[in-house]
């Protein structure tokens, strides 16, 4: 301390400060003269380049540079001194350094120039970029990886701004819609919309602005060639670093095939349902023929009576009466055929607003043909003004006909043959139909598999009636259930949700 006290206080302090600064700096600090000869080379430089200061000071700085920087350096210094044109001085840039062992490393070099004793010198600050570069490279690989996932996806993946301008477009999108990425990026996404679907974009954007996702939205989009494609869209908002919604990512799946498969399945189900109805009718064709032949026989008789009586003027009145009665019977036959025709007709599913009591009446008229001959006593208890239901009338009729036929057949050899059909409103939200018989009931082992297809206890039956009935009721949002009747026999019950009001 005594020697320090002797030195001029300011100069000594400056020198100490300079030394400390140079030695403690984490970044490398170098000073070279106008010819490139190293004047100052700090401890950080020693760590970075692996050369000791003694090996570098007094040497040309080029030794610390790998090709091609090494070769360029003289030219560069030369040009700067002649023209003042700087490519690095006062700016800095990322370059490579060369270690003593010959390996290179990335570094950021900033160079400033100054003068010492009238001589121009350059000060270089060297920041090691090894770790940063490694991280950046890893990030780049990750991005490339993600990009390749996006690119190889079978789903079309696109992104767009909130204004609807396309910002990315993967290979599947090219294949699905026929537009190349180059065609689409920067273009409005609305070119994919069939004209009648343009309104959808507004609702989608509104959802995105609220930060919501649109999931599995099934709609149509238009291919470049003008054909429409069934697609399922999932659209999610994209955020910037500050969390602002700046656009959306959109994945589209081509569901044309699935839609076609669905349609085929629906057609098959429809056909099976139809076959079940035909089968149902087949089961009571004898009763039906009898029912239809009654009015036909009566018509024949009445007309034969009339034919005889028209001959005698005094019996014209009687003849006219017979003809009038024949006409009534023809109407009766027509009504039977009408009910039957509706029932057996091959048709597509069609939901209409219906009165459950009317459906029940028709089902009873059809399902209980010939039942009076079997001495079955029918009791009906219909709800007064039940809420309307939106159903496929013929299918619900089919369910009831099936249940009524099953019930009457079950009771064929029972001492008590009472059939009760009830309709009831349930809290104004649903209607419930109940069909109760006094037959022998259903044994437990059959009850377990009751609604499975091809399970039957009837010799002439296909065993599809109840399975189809359950299917129909479920498609209407209900469920068909069987419970034992308290006094013996079976109760079937199903509910249908109340549909829109008729007014």
């Amino acid at each position, binding site marked *: 301390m005594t020697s320090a006290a002797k030195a001029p206080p300011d100069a000594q302090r400056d020198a100490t400060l300079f030394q400390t600064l140079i030695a403690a700096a984490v970044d490398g600090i170098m000073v070279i003269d106008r010819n490139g000869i190293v004047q100052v080379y700090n401890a950080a430089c020693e760590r970075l380049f692996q050369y000791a200061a003694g090996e570098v000071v007094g040497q040309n700085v080029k030794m610390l540079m790998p090709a091609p920087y090494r070769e360029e350096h003289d030219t560069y210094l030369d040009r700067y001194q002649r023209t003042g044109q700087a490519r690095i001085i006062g700016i800095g840039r990322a370059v490579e350094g060369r270690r003593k062992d010959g390996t290179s490393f990335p570094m950021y070099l900033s160079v400033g120039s100054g003068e010492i004793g009238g001589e121009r010198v350059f000060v270089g600050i060297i920041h090691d970029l090894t770790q940063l570069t490694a991280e950046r490279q890893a990030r780049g690989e990750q991005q490339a990886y993600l990009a390749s996932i996006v690119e190889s996806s079978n789903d079309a993946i696109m992104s767009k701004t909130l204004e609807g301008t396309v910002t990315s477009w993967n290979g599947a999108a090219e294949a699905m819609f026929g537009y190349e990425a180059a065609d689409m990026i920067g273009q409005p996404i609305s070119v994919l919309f069939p004209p009648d679907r343009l309104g959808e974009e507004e609702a989608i954007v509104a959802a995105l602005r609220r930060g919501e996702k649109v999931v599995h939205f099934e709609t149509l989009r238009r291919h470049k060639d003008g054909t429409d494609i069934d697609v399922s869209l999932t659209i999610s908002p994209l955020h910037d670093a500050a969390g602002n919604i700046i656009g959306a990512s959109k994945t589209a799946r081509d569901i044309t095939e699935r839609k076609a498969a669905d349609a085929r399945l629906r057609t098959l189900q429809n056909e099976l349902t139809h076959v079940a109805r035909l089968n149902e009718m087949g089961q009571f064709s*004898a*009763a039906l*023929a*009898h*029912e*239809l*032949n*009654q*009015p*036909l*026989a*009566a*018509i*024949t*008789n*009445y007309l*034969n*009576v009339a034919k*005889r*009586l028209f001959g005698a003027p005094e019996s014209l009145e009687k003849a006219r009466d*017979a003809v009038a*009665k*024949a006409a*009534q*019977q023809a109407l*009766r036959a027509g009504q039977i055929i009408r009910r039957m025709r509706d029932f057996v007709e091959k048709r597509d599913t069609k939901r209409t607003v219906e009165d459950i009591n009317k459906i029940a009446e028709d089902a009873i008229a059809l399902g209980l043909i*010939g039942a*009076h*001959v*079997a*001495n079955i006593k029918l009791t009906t208890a219909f709800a007064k003004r039940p809420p309307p239901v939106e159903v496929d009338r013929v299918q619900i009729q089919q369910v009831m006909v099936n249940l009524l036929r099953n019930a009457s057949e079950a009771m064929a050899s029972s001492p008590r043959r009472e059939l009760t059909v009830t309709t009831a409103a349930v809290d104004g939200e649903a209607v419930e139909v109940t069909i109760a018989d006094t037959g022998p009931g259903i044994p437990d082992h059959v009850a377990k598999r009751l609604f499975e297809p091809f399970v039957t206890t009837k010799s002439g039956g296909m065993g599809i009636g109840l399975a189809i009935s359950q299917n129909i009721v479920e498609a209407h949002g209900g469920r068909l259930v069987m419970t034992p009747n308290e006094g013996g026999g079976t109760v079937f019950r199903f509910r249908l949700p109340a549909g829109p009001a008729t007014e």
Partner: protein
Amino acid sequence: MTQEQKVFVVDDDLAIRDSLTALLQASGYAAAAYESADAFLAGEAPRAAGCLIVDVRMPGKNGLELQKELVGLGSPLAVIVMTGHADIPIAVQAMKAGAVDFLEKPCEESALLESVSRAFERVATASRHIDAAHAVTARMQTLTDRERQVLDLIVAGRANKVIAYELDISPRTVEIHRSRVMEKMGARNLADLVRMVLTVVT
């Protein structure tokens, strides 16, 4: 028609009852209709000599059950079975039980009326048989015990000598009884006598 022939109709269908009776009446028959087998059985009709048209499918007793019951009662009615849906087992059953005919609704007027007229022929034949049997029975009641013994042995195919031996009388006496029997029974010859007696016995 010397006397009115009566046709009974049993069918649960009002229109069938009404139209069928109208047609039968227009064709010159007397007709009466019943809505069930039990309603029909409750009256005098089952004992009448006439024709019954009955539907197979009815609540309560069906047509075939009614037919069977009438046979059991020894009813003289000729039965026509009718149905809206004919199947062979039912037809066979009806014909075996003695139905005159089996008709499917609707049927032609001519077919119906032919069946009805055939039914009345059968009724007439049956009643002629009944009348003849009644007559034979009445004549047989005029025979003495000895004459009745001789008749039974004649019908059994015995010769006069055998009859004389069995009854322990002279062949001459047998001959006298035999001619008295032929006379009382009104038989022209032996074959006639045998046929008469057989109608009563069977």
